[in-house]
C-alpha cells in the first residue's frame, strides 16, 4: 500500500459529447516503470493531463499516498509530487538550462546555487547537460533532458513522460532508458506514455492498456508478449460492411522508391520508403499518428522537400515522369492530375473565411489569361458539389469555416475528385465525421477507384482500413514495416507491424 504513489479510481473525462476517458482505474507504484499503451486517441495523454493538473476529471477520484486529492493546476500537481514531461517542450530559448529549470519557482535567484544543484541531479541519474548552456544551442534530446531535470528539481516523485522517444534517435533512447532505470532504483514512480511495443518490452515493469478511452487491463511486462499487448490495444475486429469492389486489371500508377525526407530539425520523417500505388486500387496507409503519413502525402504532391529517392508517375502510355523536385504547380503543368485531401482541412485544404465558390477556385484560379480570374467555372463546380454531395450551407458564398466538420470535408473532397485525378491522396478523410458522412466519403473514394484512379487512403481506424482498402501499407517511425493484402490481413498482424520498426519481430 505504501508503495502505491498514485491511485486513480473510475476516472471519467468528456469534451462536449466526446468521451475521452471513462472508467479508468490505475495504480502507479514507486520504484516501478509503468507503460501506458494505447493507439492514438485512446486517451493516454488526456488521462495524464488530469494527473498533472491541466484538465480536471468530470468523475472519479485521485488518491495520492492514500489521501484523496484534487489537482486543480500544474502547481497542485507539483505539490503532490507529480511532474509531467510533455511531448512538446515548454522552454525559453534564450535562457540557459538552469534558468529554465527555476523558471516559475518562487525562490531566491541564486544562479550559482541552482547550477550546483542541477549538476547534482544530473550526476545522480546520469544526465549529460551543462546548466549554463542556452536552450537554443541544444539538441532535441538535450531539451528533453532539461524538461526532466526541471521536474526533478522541483522534487517530483512521480514522473510522467508523454511519448519521450518519439523525437529521439535509438542511441538517445537507450540513454534515456538508462536514466529511467536509475530513477526507478531511486524509488521514483515513472509513467511512460508510448505506443512502441519494443520499448514497452525493454523498459517497463507493468503495462496498462487503454483502448478508445477505456481501461482494458494492467499486466506485468514479464508475463506478457507483444502479440498479447497488440490484441488488447486494437481490440477485436468489427464488421462494418463496407464495399470493396474489385477492379479488373490494375496497373502501376505511382512508383515510389527509397523515399527519404528530413524535417527542419534534421530528424528523418521518412526513411527509405518504397511502394507502388495502382489504378483501381485503394492503397491504405496505416500507422500510429506521426509515423510519416503526412510527410509521405506531402512529398508526393510536391509540398515537402525530398532528401533522396524517387517518385515516378506512370502515364497511360507507360512513360514515366519524375515528381521529386517539382513544385505542385510544375506537377500540374506537366499534366499529372493529382487530388490531395490533406489532414488539416481549414489550415491547408481550404480557406476558412471564403465561401464554397472561392474555395473551388483554389484549384483553378490560375486558369485563363490576364489579370482577372474567372469565377464562372468554380461557381458551377460549387453548385454541383453543393447538390451532388448534399452539402448543408445557406449559399455557396457562406464561409466554409462556419459549416460543420462533415460539410467542410465534403467541400474539400468534392473539389479534389471533381477532375477525376489519376492519383487521389487522402489523409484522415473521415476523421471526426459521423457515420453517414463517413460512408458517403467511402463511396466517393470507391467511385474514384472504380473510375481507374490510384487512391491512397491514410487512415487511423484499422477496421475501416481492412474493409475499404485493397492493400495496406504499414508505416512505423517513417519506415515501411510491411505491405499487406486488405482482404486477408488480420487486425493483430497490422497492429504488430504498426508498432514494430522495420517490420522485424519486437
Amino acid at each position, binding site marked *: 500500500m505504501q508503495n502505491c504513489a498514485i491511485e486513480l479510481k473510475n476516472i471519467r473525462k468528456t469534451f*462536449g459529447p466526446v468521451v475521452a476517458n471513462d472508467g479508468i482505474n490505475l495504480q502507479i507504484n514507486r520504484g516501478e516503470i509503468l507503460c501506458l499503451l494505447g493507439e492514438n486517441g485512446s486517451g493516454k495523454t488526456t488521462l495524464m493531463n488530469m494527473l498533472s493538473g491541466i484538465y480536471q476529471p468530470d468523475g472519479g477520484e485521485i488518491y495520492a499516498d492514500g489521501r484523496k486529492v484534487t489537482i486543480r493546476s500544474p502547481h497542485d500537481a507539483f505539490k503532490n509530487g507529480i511532474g509531467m514531461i510533455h511531448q512538446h517542450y515548454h522552454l525559453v530559448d534564450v535562457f540557459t538550462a538552469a534558468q529554465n529549470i527555476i523558471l516559475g519557482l518562487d525562490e531566491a535567484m541564486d544562479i550559482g546555487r541552482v547550477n550546483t544543484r542541477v549538476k547534482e541531479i544530473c550526476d545522480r541519474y546520469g544526465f549529460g547537460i551543462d546548466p549554463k548552456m542556452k536552450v537554443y544551442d541544444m539538441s532535441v534530446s538535450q531539451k528533453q533532458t532539461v524538461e526532466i531535470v526541471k521536474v526533478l528539481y522541483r522534487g517530483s516523485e512521480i514522473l510522467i513522460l508523454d511519448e519521450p522517444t518519439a523525437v529521439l534517435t535509438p542511441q538517445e533512447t537507450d540513454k534515456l532508458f538508462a536514466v529511467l532505470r536509475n530513477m526507478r532504483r531511486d524509488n521514483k514512480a515513472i509513467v511512460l506514455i508510448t505506443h512502441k511495443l519494443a520499448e514497452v518490452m525493454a523498459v517497463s515493469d507493468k503495462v496498462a492498456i487503454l483502448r478508445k478511452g477505456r481501461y482494458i487491463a494492467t499486466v506485468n511486462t514479464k508475463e506478457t508478449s507483444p502479440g498479447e499487448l497488440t490484441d488488447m490495444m486494437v481490440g477485436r475486429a468489427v464488421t462494418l460492411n463496407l464495399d470493396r469492389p474489385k477492379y479488373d486489371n490494375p496497373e502501376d500508377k505511382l512508383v515510389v522508391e527509397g523515399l527519404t525526407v528530413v524535417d527542419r530539425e534534421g530528424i528523418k520523417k521518412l526513411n527509405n520508403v518504397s511502394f507502388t500505388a495502382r489504378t483501381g486500387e485503394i492503397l491504405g496507409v496505416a500507422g500510429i499518428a506521426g509515423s510519416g503519413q503526412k510527410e509521405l502525402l506531402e512529398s508526393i504532391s510536391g509540398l515537402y522537400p525530398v532528401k533522396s529517392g524517387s517518385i515516378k508517375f506512370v502515364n497511360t502510355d507507360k512513360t514515366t515522369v519524375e515528381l521529386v523536385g517539382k513544385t505542385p504547380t510544375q506537377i500540374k503543368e506537366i499534366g499529372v492530375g493529382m487530388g490531395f485531401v490533406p489532414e488539416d482541412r481549414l489550415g491547408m485544404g481550404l480557406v476558412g473565411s471564403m465561401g464554397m465558390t472561392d474555395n473551388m477556385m483554389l484549384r483553378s484560379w490560375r486558369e485563363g489569361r490576364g489579370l482577372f480570374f474567372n469565377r464562372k467555372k468554380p461557381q458551377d463546380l460549387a453548385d454541383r458539389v453543393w447538390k451532388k454531395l448534399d452539402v448543408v450551407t445557406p449559399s455557396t458564398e457562406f464561409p466554409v469555416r462556419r459549416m460543420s466538420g462533415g460539410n467542410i470535408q465534403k467541400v474539400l473532397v468534392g473539389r479534389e475528385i471533381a477532375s477525376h485525378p489519376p492519383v487521389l491522396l487522402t489523409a484522415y478523410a473521415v476523421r471526426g465525421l459521423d457515420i453517414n458522412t463517413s460512408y458517403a466519403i467511402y463511396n466517393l473514394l470507391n467511385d474514384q477507384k472504380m473510375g481507374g484512379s490510384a487512391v491512397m487512403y491514410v487512415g487511423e481506424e484499422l477496421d475501416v482500413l481492412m474493409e475499404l482498402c485493397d492493400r495496406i501499407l504499414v508505416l512505423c517511425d517513417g519506415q515501411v514495416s510491411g505491405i499487406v493484402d486488405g482482404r486477408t490481413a488480420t487486425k493483430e498482424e497490422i497492429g504488430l507491424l504498426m508498432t514494430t520498426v522495420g517490420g522485424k519481430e519486437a
Partner: protein
Amino acid sequence: MSDKAKKNKTPFIRLSKKSESMLDPRKAVAIRISSVVVALILGSIPILLTGVNPVKAYGIIVQGSLGNKIYLQQTIKKMIPLLCCALAIGPCFKMRFWNIGAEGQLTAGAIACSAIAIWFGKSSMPSILILSLMFIFAIVAGGIWGFIPGYFKAKYNTNETLFTLMMNYIAIGIAKWLQGGPWEGRKGTQIIPIFDRKTFLPNVLGVHCGWIIVLLIVIIMHYYMTRTKHGFEVAVIGDSENTARYAGMNVGWIMMRTMFLSGAICGIAGFVVVAGANHTLNDVVADGNGFTAITVSWLSQLNSYVMILISALLAIISKGSKTLNQRVGVPASVAEIVSGILLFCMLGCEFFINYEIKFRWSRDKDAKKSASTAEQAKNGSTDGNRSSIPANTSKEAE
C-alpha cells in the same frame, strides 16, 4: 468544500468571445455609432477644462472644416495622402503582413520625385513630361522601399513590423540630410527652395488634381482586391499560408510583389504631396499620414470605399481643430487629445463587437452560454480539435 471555494472564485466581471453566430451586423453598427457618441462625450471634458462650451467647439470643428469652400478644399488636401496610404496598406493587411512603413515609403517616393523636380525643373522639358517622370520615380522609389522588407520576410522570415518601422527612419533621415545638405537653399536655412512651377500639379475644382489620382486608386484597388488573381492570392495567404502553398502559390514572391505595390502607392502619395501641396521636400513630408493610415485601413476593414469615409472623418477633425485653435484659442494639443479619444473609442469598440462582458450575477445567461459552447464543442469535435483553433484565431482577420 473545494467546490464551494471554486464557485466563489468566479470573477466579478469576465469577458467571453462571442461565437460567430452571435455576431449581428445591426448590433455592430449600433456599437460603432455609440462609440462615436461616447467619444464626443469624453472629448468634451478636455474642452470644458479650457473653458469653452463643447457643443460650440464641435460646431466650430464641423464649420471650420466643411463650412466654406476654402475650408473644404483644405480638408480635402489633408485627406488625399491619408487615403492614399490607407489604400496602399490594405493589401498588406489582407495578407497579414504588418506593413507599418507607409511613412517611409511615402517619404522615399517624395525624395525621388523631388530629385526629378530639382534636376529637370529648370530645364526646357515640358511640364507634363517632368510630372510623369516624377510620378514614375516616386512609384519606383516607394516600391523599392516596400520591396526590401518584403524580400527579407520572404527569404529569411524577418519580422516585418520592425523592419518596415526602421525603414521609416532611414527614409526620413535621408530627407533630413538632403534638406540640410546637398539640396539646401541658402546655407543654414535647412530649407529646400520651392520647386519650379512646371513641377506643380494642376488644380481641378480648386484642389490639386491629386484627388483624381487617389479616387482612381480607390476604384482600382477595389477591383484589384476582389476580382483579380493577385487579390485572390493575397486573400488566401492572409487566411493560411499553408493553403496558399497547397494551391500552388509562390508565397514569397507574392509577398514581395504585394509589398512593392504597397510601397509604390505610398510613393504616389509622396508625389501628390510634393507636386500638389508642398512644392518642396522636407523631413516631415509624410506628416504622420503613414501611421494614421493604419487606423484608417483597419477601421474600414480594408474596404476601399469605406476608407474614403474614415479618412474624410479624420481630415475633418484635423482641419476643424486648427480652426478651433484660431477662433477660440483652444490649444491645438487639446484638439489632438479629442481626436485621440475618438480613435481610441472607434478602435476600442471592435472589442465589444467581438466580445461580451459578463457579470457574476448573470447566471441564467451563463447556462445558455455553456449550452452553446457544448454545441460548439460538438461542431468542433466533428472537425478534429486542430481545425477549430484556427477557426477562432482567424476571426481577427474579418
